[in-house]
Structure formats: C-alpha cells, structure tokens
C-alpha cells in the first residue's frame, strides 16, 4: 500500500474554542514529511453542532462547555458516549448511584446521551465519506470513549480502514491497555507522535509490521504487541509549528460560530524544568516525559506572530506546563513590543519576581496559573513544591497589583501534614480576602505518573481505579489498573473538623473577595494603607516615620524581625528588635501581614484591577 489517505480526528470533549494542538502538529508533520495534508474531522465541533441542530438549540454550546470543563473528575463526558460502546443500558445505574452518593449535578448529560448513538453513527459516516485509508484519533482526558465508539463504528462499516489512537491517554501502560482491550483499534501510538506517527505510516505503506517503531502497539495475529517506549524525547527544534487552517475554516462556517470566540493554542515548551529535579508528589501531568524542552525564543515569537496574523485571533493559550525562565527576558519583551491587544494565558512557577510579573503584564498576559497549591510551608515541603508559603502569598499579592487573573487551587490530603499547619492557614485567610482566592480547597487525587502513584511508600499504597470508571468502561479492574489516569485511595492528611473549616474559610474568601481591597500607596511624605477588606474595620494607616517606612519596605519582601533589624542596621537605621517585633505584632493584629514561622509579609497591594463579579 502506498500514499495512505489519512483523516485525523478529535472527538468531544476537546474545548470548542480551541483548535486541536495534536491535529495541528501532526498536520505539519505530514506535510513536512512530503505527504499530502491529512483530512481533519473536528468531532467536538460536529457534536456541538449536532446537539444544537437536533434539539433546536435546547442543547446549546454552553451545555457542551459545562460538561467539557466540569465533567472530567466525574467521567461525565465519557459516560455520555459509553452506551454506544457498551450497550444502551451500560453505566446508567452506576452513574445514577454515583451522582446521588456525591451529590453531583450532571448538567445536561442525560439529555445528551440520548443523541450519542445517532451522532457516533453520523460521525463515522462523515469520516468515511472521504474514503480514508487510515483514521487517527487523538485522545486526552474524556476523549477515550467517544473516540473508541467512533473507531468501532468505522471498523464495522469499513473493516479495511486502519484505526489508530494516540495522545495523552495513550501514554505508558494506558496505551497498551487501550489496545489489547479494543480489537477494532489497529494501532496505538504511545508517547510523542511527531516522530512515531510518520514512522508508523511508513511501515504500513511498506507493508511491514511496525516492530521497530518505538512506542507503538500493534497486532500480531490475535496478540497485542507493545513496542518499547521511545528512548529519547523529541528535541525542541523538532517540535513542529501547528497548522490550524482546517479548524478555523470549519468554525467560520459553523452554525455555532456565533457562540464560540476562537483562541489560538501554542506550546513554547514541553516537560517541566522543576519536575526534572523535584517532581511535585501529586502531579502526573507530564506523563512519562518530564524532560524540559523549550523552543528558541525567536521561534516562539515568530510562531505567535505568524499564527496571530494568519488567523486574526488575539487570544492565545500557551499550553506549556511551566514557562521557561529565560522567556521573561528573551520572549515576553518582544511580545510586549508588538503592541497588539493580546490576551495570553500562561502557566508559571509560583515564585515569580516583581520584574517577571511586570514582564508578563507588559506582554499582555492576562491570566496566569501559578502552581500555588498551598499556603503552608510545611505542606509545600511535603509535596516538594520548591516554594514556601510566603512566596506564594507574595505572588498572589503581586499578581493582584499587576491586574493578572490568577487561577490556583488549594490542595490538602498529603501524608504527614498536620492539623496545626492548616489551622494556621485558616487563621490567616481572613487577612487575604483582597487577593484572588483559590478555585476551591480540594483533597489531592492520585494520578498516574505522579510520585505518589509510582512510590507507594509515600503513603498511597492501597489504590484502585477511581470509581468514576465503573460507569465508563466495561472492563475488569485488572485492565483498568493499566488503562486509567485517576485512582481512589485511602485518604491521607487532615480530615474532619479542620478539613471542613478549611473548605469553609476558602468559601468565605470567594464570597468576600470582590468587595475587599487593601491598597498601599506612597508619596514623599510616607506610606499610606487603605483597608477596605470585608470583615475588617475600614481604616487607613499612614507611616511617616522613616524607620517604619524602611521596615515596611522590608516586610514587603517577607522577612523576620531579626533579618529586618540587621538590614536596617546596614542602612544606618537603628530599630531595636523588641520594638520592631512589637510593631509587627500590631500589624499582624490588623491583618496587614501574613506570618510564616518567624517571617512576615506585608499584604497590601499597590494597585487594584477592575474586578467583575461573575
């Protein structure tokens, strides 16, 4: 067989407002390998369009988004399609029990499920309309069951069409389990597809078994063969530039176009430079490939420029799990110099300096996701996060001053954490209501590829595939052990009253934040702090004494009384430590500083973003 005609497919629940990065990358890879650009099938858009048209708008794109954004940890998206794969009644009882037990609102999932069978059939037929030789599905998070359902239907209608699965859900043992349990999947590509996928195509076209293609799962007779993983991650110079033309063309002519504000998705790096040395114990996001690789700065700026220009889109999601520290000086200033009204999202490490935050803001980064995770140094140390509580609070304070939307999560449930650590956090949360709250306080999950998963001695020895998979897959537990990403395990760390108090304190924070400000500004006469936080007396504080002004500036960096005294002495200012400690106690009593052991951080921000209540 020569010149395979290829169709690349992304199924629900890929975000509606973003093109598929894997499809964009593999399109480029095929082109660069001298192949014809593959057809693409944006099954996510087609599903939203199908629901919209079939129900006369009663199932709208917003309903799709609700499942896509909030259904992951309940397996809701997979459940919608599981009846197509495993029979109409499969998973209904288990899902209903699950919803009741955990008091979960499934959104419009039940209504959507009624349409899944017809959509899968339509999708298979539409994909086959162009008579592809090979159909490749990219699958991450809740795309497994929808992808499998369509792959099975394609195989039923056109047995000679080759089916391939790849993507994050296929990493490591998950890909092998997906393959051996689904005979209608001819190949699974594990690991980075850029080098493996073309090599697989070459082998198929030559008529050879892909025995030498790293990471691929294939069938020899009735036996699933699992090739060893690729030995080396893709070098950054070989990470392609994505081609999104098809997606933008599709969206422009879509009946749901008016509901979707398209965004660009770009990657400037893969892996995690922190995780290479100290992987956070709960994090499995980088899968089996932790090695950090970032594109050269000029190339990242060029890609951004080209894609923004080509697609006339100014919202950009940088999909990196962590920004390269060199980018603060080598990339962001160049983006700032463009003077375009961009709106960029970036994930960052939490220990940002004021200069780095300034560079983000100047480059029109509007949203950051720093891995804050906790406001207790004790807990951060347990999770090997590499930052302490003071740095985390400082980042929250400075992001607020810089008008950066800041998304973060407060995690608990780490083995060895103490109630006392959390009572200290809970005590201080009322002083923090003027900075952006976490999206919630949640116990950690046991994720595949995380140290907590790979090293049972860290405290999570007893585990089983998360209960959500009971209503998703009709497979025995021993297979799910290899196939799934999330696991249930014995709870660790805090529980009971302290966990409840933490969740309540965070809920109060969310409720109070919008109307709370604590602003510091200064003039030649002194430092002025205006306290308008919910739950605190509305007061203004004014420091005119040069000694207090100097001490306050040190507190903005987060220091102990002793360290401040030493530094002040170096500056020629004598401030007796007991007197300073007494003043800091007063500041703490007024909620103007955050305490972490012996060190204190001044909490007032220097500017106030425009907040909108949503």
């Amino acid at each position, binding site marked *: 067989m020569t010149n395979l005609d290829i169709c690349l497919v992304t199924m629900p629940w890929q975000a509606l407002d973003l093109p598929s990065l894997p499809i964009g990358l593999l399109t480029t890879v095929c082109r660069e390998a001298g192949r014809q650009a593959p057809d693409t099938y944006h099954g996510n858009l087609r599903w939203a369009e199908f629901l919209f048209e079939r129900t006369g708008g009663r199932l709208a794109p917003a309903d799709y988004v609700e499942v896509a954004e909030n259904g992951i940890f309940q397996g809701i998206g997979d459940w919608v399609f599981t009846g197509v794969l495993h029979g109409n009644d499969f998973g209904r009882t288990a899902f209903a029990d699950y919803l009741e037990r955990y008091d979960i609102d499934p959104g419009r999932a039940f209504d959507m499920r009624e349409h899944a069978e017809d959509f899968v059939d339509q999708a298979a037929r539409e994909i086959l309309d162009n008579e592809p030789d090979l159909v490749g599905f990219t699958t991450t998070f809740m795309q497994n069951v929808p992808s499998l359902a369509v792959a099975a239907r394609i195989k039923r209608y056109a047995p000679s069409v080759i089916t391939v699965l790849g993507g994050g859900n296929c990493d490591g043992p998950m890909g092998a389990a997906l393959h051996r349990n689904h005979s209608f999947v001819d190949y699974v590509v594990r690991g980075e597809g850029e080098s493996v996928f073309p090599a697989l195509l070459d082998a198929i076209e030559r008529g050879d078994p892909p025995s030498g293609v790293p990471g691929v799962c294939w069938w020899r007779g009735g036996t699933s063969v699992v090739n060893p993983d690729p030995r080396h991650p893709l070098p950054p110079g070989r990470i392609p530039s994505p081609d999104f033309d098809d997606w933008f063309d599709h969206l422009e002519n879509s009946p749901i176009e*008016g509901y979707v*504000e398209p965004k660009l998705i770009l990657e400037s790096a893969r892996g995690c430079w922190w995780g290479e040395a100290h992987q956070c114990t709960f994090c499995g996001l980088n899968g089996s490939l932790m090695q950090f690789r970032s594109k050269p700065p000029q190339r990242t700026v060029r890609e951004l*420029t080209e894609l*923004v*220009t080509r697609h*006339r*889109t*100014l919202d950009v999601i940088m999909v990196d799990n962590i920004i390269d520290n060199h980018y603060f000086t080598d990339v962001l200033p160049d983006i700032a110099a*463009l*003077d*375009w*009204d*961009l*709106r960029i*999202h970036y994930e960052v490490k939490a220990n940002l300096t004021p200069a780095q935050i300034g560079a983000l803001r100047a480059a029109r980064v*509007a*949203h950051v996701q720093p891995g804050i995770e906790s406001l207790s140094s004790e807990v951060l140390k347990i999770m090997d996060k590499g930052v302490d509580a003071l740095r985390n609070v400082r980042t929250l304070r400075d992001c*607020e001053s810089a*008008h*950066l*939307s800041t998304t973060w999560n407060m995690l608990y449930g780490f083995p060895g954490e103490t109630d006392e650590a959390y009572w200290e956090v809970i005590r201080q949360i009322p002083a923090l209501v003027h900075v*952006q709250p976490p999206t919630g306080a949640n116990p950690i999950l046991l994720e595949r590829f995380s140290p907590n998963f790979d090293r049972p001695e860290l405290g999570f020895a007893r585990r089983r595939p998360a209960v959500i998979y009971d209503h998703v897959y009709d497979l025995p537990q021993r297979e799910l052990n290899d196939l799934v990403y999330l696991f249930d395990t014995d709870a660790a760390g805090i529980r009971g009253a302290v966990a409840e108090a933490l969740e309540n304190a965070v809920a109060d924070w969310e409720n109070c934040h919008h109307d709370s400000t604590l602003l510091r*500004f200064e*003039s*030649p*006469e*002194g430092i*002025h702090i*205006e*306290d*308008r936080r919910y739950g605190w007396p*509305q*007061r*203004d*504080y*004014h*420091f*005119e*004494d040069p000694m*207090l002004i100097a001490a306050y500036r040190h507190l903005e960096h987060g220091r102990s009384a002793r360290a401040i005294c030493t530094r002040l002495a170096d500056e020629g200012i004598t401030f007796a430590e007991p007197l300073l400690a007494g*003043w800091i106690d*007063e*500041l703490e009593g*007024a909620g103007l500083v955050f305490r972490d052991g012996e060190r204190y951080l001044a909490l007032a921000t220097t500017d*106030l*973003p*425009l*907040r*909108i209540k*949503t």
Partner: protein
Amino acid sequence: MSALATTRQAGERPAWDRRVHRVECRLTNDLLAAIDPVALYRAGYRTLVLAEPVVLGEDGEFDVRFLHLLREAMSVILRIDWAAGSTVPFDLSLVRHLHPPRSGPQDELVREWQRQHRFGLCYYRVGPGFVLLKDIRGDGARYRLDDGRAVASWPRLESVQRLADASSDTLELCELLDGERLLLRRDGWATLLPYRMRQWPVPFDAA
C-alpha cells in the same frame, strides 16, 4: 498601632493621595484636547474628577471630544467622575458602555445609564493588519475589520476627526461604522464609540 503609626478612620483622604486628578474649571475644546487619560493612568491616577458640570448639546465638536475623553478613560480603566450640566444629547443605547454621569438634569436617564453601564460592553482590539470589535450593548455582535484601507484609516477615528479633512477611505469607514452604531458623529466631527481594550478585568474572560 497608636505608638508607631498614624491611623485614620476611613474617608479622611490625605492630601498627598495622588490617585485622584481634579479638573476644576469648565471644560473647553482646547482643554479636552489636552487631557490624556492614558498619561494620567500611567502617572498613577485612577479617577478623574470634572468639578464643573459638563454642558453638552451646544457644540458638536465639544460633544465628540467629550465622548472621546470618556472612551479613552474606559480604555485604561480611569474612572471619570462627572455631572451632566445639560440634557445629554446621546442615545443611551449608544453610550451605555462609557462612564455615566453622577448626576444631571435628566434623573431618569442618569439612573438608567448608571444601571446599564458595565465594563466590556463595546470595545476593540488591535492586531497585525486587523481590528476585532465586540459590541454587546444590544443583541451582541462581533466584527473583524481586515480590509487594508479600513484598517489604515482606523487611527484617524480613534482620535477626533473633522470630517471635512477626512480622506475618502476614512469617510468610507465612517459610513461602515455608522451603520453598525459604532461611530459618534456631530456637526462634521466624528470619533469611534468602542474603546480600545488596554486593560483586562479580573477575571480576564469576563469581558
């Protein structure tokens, strides 16, 4: 903290609080041309107080220049504290994306403007060779302007444009924008109604 710092009850604004810039005299066209909200914002001001009531409807150029000031202030989220000193000659559905007056002779209109106003109702973003507009003052619309001549003319309408001096391309753009209620035109003067999005709110996707 009584021993170590001065404390005040809320509401006593110290004289050195430089976040508020006051214009004490009555606005004129020359003064309006000289007030630069972007520069004020960069200098640390967050509120511009116009002490004298603003009299609108007497001079088209003045009306357009005043609306230009309101628009530029929205762009950097500089609050404008102003009072209408006359009947407001603008259709509320055209201007409710801009800072409302604190008071004016038309109580009902002032209240409605204050009620309907919020950030992000009508703005534009500049990219390489194109301009994106979002207008949700009414039913909601998004536009992309990418015609080369129109994009080249855009900066003329970001400022206050005397139409007698405008090029044919600019006049053509005026017609286009007027048709979508995105232009204010008075007595031969014109300026854009949407403001440039220079600062995103928190959360970033709320506009």
